């Protein structure tokens, strides 16, 4: 019989709704009846619903209160696991990880410390902020790892994005982790049956090797004029690759602020980001240099910026 204590690991970038989800989780009937220890690593006002905490008297551990540095968090986590295993002996541990945590580090930490045989990950749940996921994914490695290693992904804040953008986020999440359970949500609210049916998939914690990025970001800058029609055609031709675009393009007769989100193009010649062509692009499903070269061709720069 496995006497190890199950752990629910909650990951997701800052603002993705981890705390809201945690509050909802703590309110579920089959969770409420358990003796739980909470480990919180996201700084800020705690955010845990006080009534839920008080009524159930959860032992609550705040890990290093905001530090994002791995070694400080690790040593605190080791002590916390030891204390929980020896003194608290709960039915369940819930960890809300820091926004830039890499799940592999937590998993390998459980193995490194003597907690290995006293704990097991029962589910690894990742919250995704629909409104900002693409931007963060392009710049922050750990966000992709959080999705990749999740057993379930909750695509949160669906109420804050248009359907087109939401569809792209779902497509991205699916590409990163085809086998995880997925659901869209607002305020971190999901059905109890979704939670109950999450099955943990053990993955090796070796995520050190970095495969080529699925999503990438680059900038293009030019002092030359750009043909508007050609530029808009470029966006149309690669609309399935361009996830986000933002900047200013100098079309000669006018300089326009331009934004692409959810395959929708927004042009505004009353607003300027810069006084020359300067765009930031987040894209995927195509070789980065190839797409960059297309932009360089169209924007008229002799060499990449």
């Amino acid at each position, binding site marked *: 019989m496995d006497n190890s204590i199950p752990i629910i690991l909650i990951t997701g970038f800052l603002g993705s709704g981890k705390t809201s989800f945690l509050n909802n989780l703590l309110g579920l009937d089959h969770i409420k009846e358990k003796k739980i220890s909470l480990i919180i690593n996201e700084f800020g006002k705690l955010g845990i619903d006080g009534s839920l905490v008080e009524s159930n008297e959860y032992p609550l551990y705040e890990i290093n209160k905001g530090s994002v540095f791995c070694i400080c968090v690790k040593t605190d986590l080791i002590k916390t696991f030891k204390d929980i295993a020896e003194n608290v002996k709960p039915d369940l541990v819930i960890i809300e990880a820091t926004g830039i945590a890499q799940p592999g580090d937590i998993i390998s930490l459980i193995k490194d410390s003597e907690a290995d045989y006293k704990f097991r990950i029962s589910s690894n749940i990742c919250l995704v902020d629909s409104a900002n996921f693409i931007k963060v994914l*392009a*710049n922050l490695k750990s966000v992709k790892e959080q999705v990749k290693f999740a057993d379930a992904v909750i695509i949160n804040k669906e109420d804050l994005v248009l359907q087109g953008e939401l569809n792209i986020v779902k497509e991205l999440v699916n590409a990163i982790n085809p086998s995880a359970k997925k659901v869209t949500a607002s305020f971190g609210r999901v059905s109890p049956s979704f939670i109950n049916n999450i099955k943990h998939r053990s993955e090796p914690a070796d995520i050190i090797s*970095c495969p080529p990025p699925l999503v990438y970001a680059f900038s293009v800058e030019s002092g030359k004029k750009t043909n508007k029609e050609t530029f808009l055609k470029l966006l149309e031709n690669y609309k399935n690759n361009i996830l986000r675009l933002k900047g200013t393009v100098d079309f000669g007769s006018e300089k326009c602020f331009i934004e692409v989100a959810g395959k929708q193009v927004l042009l505004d010649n009353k607003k300027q980001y810069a006084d020359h062509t300067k765009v930031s692009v987040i894209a995927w499903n195509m070789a980065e240099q190839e797409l960059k070269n297309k932009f360089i061709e169209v924007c008229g720069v002799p060499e990449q910026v």
Partner: protein
Amino acid sequence: MKSKERVLNAINRESVDRAPWVPFVGCHAGQLLGVSAEEYLKSSDLMFDGISKAIELYKPDGIPVCFDLQVEAEILGCDLTWAEENPPAVVSHPLSSGKKLGDLPEINSESGRLKSILDVTKKVRSGFPDLAVYGLITGPFTLALHLYGSDIFMEMFDHADYVKEIIGYCTEIGKVISKSYIDSGCDVIAIVDPMTSQIGPEQFKEFVTPYASSLFSYIRELGAKSSFFVCGHAQQNIESMCECRPDNISIDENIPLDFVRNMSEKYKISFGGNLQLTAVLLLGTPEDCQENAVNCMETGGDTGFILAPGCDIPYATPRENLESIIKVIEDPYQRDIIKALDKNRNMEILYNMRDYGQSDKVIVDIITLDSEACAPCQYMVESVKNITPEFEGIVEWREHKIKNRESLIFMTALMVRNIPTICIDGQITFVSQIPPKEQLIAAIQKRIIEKLRLKIQRKKKVVYILGDDKDKKFDSEINKAILELGEDIQVVNVTERENILSYGVLPEQTPAVVVGKYNLKTVRKLPATDVIKEWLKGE
């Protein structure tokens, strides 16, 4: 070769007599003094005492003055929360709560905790002139994160120019502090920028390279050496780090050291790392630490390598773990032992030594590396060899060279962990020391006496006279026999009916004589059931 010269030579990729050792002792020194991390990092007196203590215990070639990546952030207006056993954590970000860069306070050598850190730097410099002194500063990208918060990763897309402005500002802060450290006596300025491990190579080139390069150039102009220190999963950026032209890059266990070595060789810079902080230094044994150190040194090679932990040493790291490392750095013999023992790692224990030492002779086993190749082993073997004849055949000695697999298995079976070791009848008796002749003789004699006692106990006899020996005839004859034999045998009279019956003798068959022999089988050790069965069958 003096320590400072050793470190600087390694950084310059010039020859060294051995790998330099630079433990990154930060708030761990608080543990050495018995104070919390907070007390330690807030007191210049404690910091100097802690560094001095660390130098005394760990015998480093170089050491940082302070390892706290929140010093600048605190001066610039970030709130900190303090901990017992960790550096503080930043918990507020002025640039994301309404402040502009122009609103932030000026930073100079008199600001905040920097002033006391610089005072400590000067004291360490003058107190330890032969040591390489490291000044650590928070890298521009990490400092920008402190000032803005995690949303900076989104702003890198939405407002890239503003993010670059913040990073540029942080770079200028870095230059001010670097100069202050150098003016106070630092030899090496380490730019510690762990958050760069979070971004990919393209973002690194855009948001880190121009700024870090500028900083390393500046440090070079001031005549000091520089190190680019990034912990975390940073392998994707190692080449970009080298392209920033630091004199040294330092990494943690998340990146293979051979990968970094090869990249450093390509760019002709030095590199350092990467002792494992948690599994080894914090949670391991001194032997684990030595093994990790030897593996790092073997991989790092002898050009441009500096042995160091992957990051700030955890507060609670046992001091003996760090103390053990210098032994393998300085002593090639110890390194050879560790390398030989490393083969032991996956060995099955094939022998059950539980009853080892039951023979009539006393067996002295000497576990060595190789007495023909190393002096300490040779002396140990000779010490035993020279006294054995005095025991006239009672003592037999054997050498087990752990370079041979069978000897490694034997060593493991006897639970020997250090080389050389002398075991007497399977008991570890002398470890890593050549015993003086008198002590060795005394130890062997003690074992001989012990064996004799056991032998006597094993052969003990009792004679039971069952029934009423009215004339004491039986008693008399038996005692006469015992006297003539010269043995120590007990005579017991058994008269109770039940007791007589328990010997399988009827009362009407008395008087009767029963002779009992005790055969002592074990003391203080619980045998297996199978062993007990064999004993019983044998009787």
